């Protein structure tokens, strides 16, 4: 436990600064996500909108939120995330097809 003794200097200053920058962005994303959630809930709670308009807006909000999660919280924007991104998008593609199949065709 050598590293524990030296609590002052666990990481060099440059790294620390960079991590802090990153953290700031993440807190901002969180704030935005909360705002988006509030808008979504507010939209439904007010009950003013027709579902034809409301549903696309709600879905948009969800997609933006998920974008924040993936790109900021899960670092998909960072280097070395090429393959993860590829496969997540592959998964999303397969997921969309599945939804199209079950959602649209099941209704026929």
């Amino acid at each position, binding site marked *: 436990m050598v*590293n524990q003794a030296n609590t002052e200097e*666990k990481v060099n200053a440059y790294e620390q600064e960079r991590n802090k920058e990153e953290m700031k962005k993440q807190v901002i994303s969180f704030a935005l996500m909360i705002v988006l959630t509030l808008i979504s809930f507010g939209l439904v709670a007010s009950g003013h909108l027709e579902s034809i308009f409301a549903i696309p807006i709600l879905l948009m909000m969800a997609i933006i939120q998920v974008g924040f999660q993936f790109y900021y919280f899960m670092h998909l924007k960072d280097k070395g995330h090429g393959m*993860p991104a590829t496969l997540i998008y592959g998964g999303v593609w397969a997921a969309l097809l599945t939804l199209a199949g079950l*959602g649209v065709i099941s209704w026929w």
Partner: protein
Amino acid sequence: MSIDHSLFPETMPSNPERATLEGKNKFMGLWFFLGGETVLFACLFGIYIALKNSTAGGPSSTDLFGLELVFFMTVLLLSSSLTSVYAMYHMRNNDFKKMMLWLGITGLLGIGFLACEIYEFAHYIIDYDFTFRSSAFGSAFYALVGFHGGHVIFGISWLIVLMIRNARRGLNLYNAPKFNTFSLYWHFIDVVWVFVFTVVYLMGMVS
């Protein structure tokens, strides 16, 4: 390279979770697994959408859902996402104690979420007699939300085992990837929840 993976300021890599081959493998493996999970949940969402209106005379989504509880649950889970980000921030700064603290908070928020969900299910079952046998809608609802809840339970158990095991060890290159994979998994649970509250609850309320 030695078996001892301890971290020192002078050798601390900027991404301790991906510094070793094993760490990189774990990192990739978990992401790929999440790709598969995407399809898994898409199937459940698809089924839910297809069976949403098949209430067989039982209660429908507008009869059941209330916004307040769901909003509270959403905030809980969203915050737990942020706290796990904090934990990873401290991991990169090699501050083990703070990392554990934030992970602990993450776990507590997760448990809070779970408690709400159990309360919600109990409410539906007792007050509305709405079970997963009531109608196709009931089956689909409990399958989707329950699968997500199951993922939360698994995440919390994983976190507890991880924290107990590493409580006295400090951070090193061997366990940093493990914490990181957990945090990725936890974020993904949140991603799924975003769609659950949008598609199930909010869209269930407008129509």
